[in-house]
């Protein structure tokens, strides 16, 4: 396949601006690929097996997928638009990633298809070198764009799945615990990035509502350090909880984190804090045990 060092993503010529001959060439090319669909597809499937790609799939499965990839490939060449191909690539990826198919395999098979089709063009036009050149001029940018589209679609889909899995892990690892009626505990452990902080807050607020919690103990003993963004977030969580009628007690505040809070302008005398989790729970129970709660002690002054 003659590569001329072109940028893989060289733009496809706007169909309307194409010269007559280029459009006609593409039509001829597409017709040839459709006519020889069966044997080209078989040749491709053979090459895939020889290269030991898609080993996670059976031969029947490979053949079935090969058929739809081939058809989508030719259609992209024909229409010059890539949305359908992009959607198909995503769809295909969604199906094969759980089977264990890897990026190099997907890139590999698309490039093999490109080769198989190029070879067949050589075979057809080998007697007319000039025509062969013109056909390849029409074919190459499109074929490279297709390879790129499929590969990128696969990678994006993979990243999406990984993110989803990470999200699920995060959800599992930050439980909001209800230990007593109307009392929730949120122990936070480890490093908190902004995304996790946000997720924690959303989970906590929902839990306050579901459990009708009146007191929440947020324990940050397990948090080593907090930058000002996350510290700000903690303050926002406390304020948002109050809007839902819950009092927040923060426990396990290290001197470093206390300093960070002061630096961002938090008035620590306004935030209810207790040294450790045990003490925090006791304080919470004390608050809940009263029938009449002296509000001046709980809420910030107006």
């Amino acid at each position: 396949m003659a590569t001329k060092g072109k940028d893989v993503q060289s733009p496809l010529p706007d169909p309307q601006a194409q010269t007559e001959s280029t459009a006609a060439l593409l039509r001829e090319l597409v017709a040839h690929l459709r006519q020889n669909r069966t044997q080209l597809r078989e040749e491709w499937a053979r090459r895939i097996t020889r290269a030991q790609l898609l080993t996670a799939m059976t031969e029947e499965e490979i053949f079935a997928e090969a058929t739809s990839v081939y058809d989508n490939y030719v259609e992209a060449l024909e229409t010059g638009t890539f949305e359908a191909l992009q959607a198909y690539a995503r769809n295909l990826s969604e199906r094969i990633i759980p089977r264990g198919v890897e990026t190099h395999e997907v890139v590999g098979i698309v490039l093999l298809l490109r080769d198989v089709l190029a070879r067949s063009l050589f075979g057809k036009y080998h007697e007319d070198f000039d025509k062969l050149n013109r056909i390849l001029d029409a074919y190459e940018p499109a074929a490279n764009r297709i390879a790129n589209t499929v590969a990128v679609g696969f990678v994006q889909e993979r990243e999406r799945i990984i993110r989803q899995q990470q999200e699920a892990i995060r959800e599992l690892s930050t439980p909001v615990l209800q230990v007593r009626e109307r009392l929730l505990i949120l122990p936070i452990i480890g490093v908190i990035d902004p995304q996790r902080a946000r997720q924690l807050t959303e989970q906590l607020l929902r839990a306050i509502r579901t459990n009708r919690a009146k007191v929440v103990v947020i324990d940050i003993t397990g948090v080593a350090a907090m930058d000002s963004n996350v510290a700000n977030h903690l303050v926002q969580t406390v304020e948002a909880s109050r809007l839902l009628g819950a009092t927040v007690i923060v426990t396990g505040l290290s001197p470093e984190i206390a300093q960070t809070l002061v630096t961002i302008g938090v008035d620590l005398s306004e935030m209810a804090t207790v040294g450790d989790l045990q003490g925090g729970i006791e304080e919470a129970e004390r608050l809940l045990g009263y029938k009449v709660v002296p509000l001046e002690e709980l809420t910030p002054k107006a």
Partner: protein
Amino acid sequence: MSRPSSESTVDRDVSTVADELLIPITADVDVVTARQRGRDLAAEAGFSSGDQTVIAAAISEIARNILMYAKRGEIALSVVANGDRQGVIVVARDQGPGIRDVPRAMQDGYSTSGGLGLGLPGARRLMDDFDVVSDAGKGTTVTMKKWRRMNA
């Protein structure tokens, strides 16, 4: 109605996923309409419920600003895709008196109308991208965007 990506430039592959929604702001009730349409659009674009609320609140602030200072204007809403992220774009335009001192208006607590002046800085805190272009006597355009990663 999406435009084929072959029309976009090579590097960005940005395409508009839905048409632009134009909401005139001339009365009280339009502020409500604008934020509800904004919420619906964000929902269609797959934003979480929390983010929908945030976007609606930001639109509400900006729309009210238009009413208070320019008396009339419009808000344009659209959804765009950029690679593997999707975003809601809100453009608020008016031909009002304009903001003389944009940086100052972006500070908390600054207000020329006796209110709390939380409109601009508040909305900025809520959104990811925020831009204000204003000429005294010519009007103001506020462009704000919120992005999300594509999850199925």
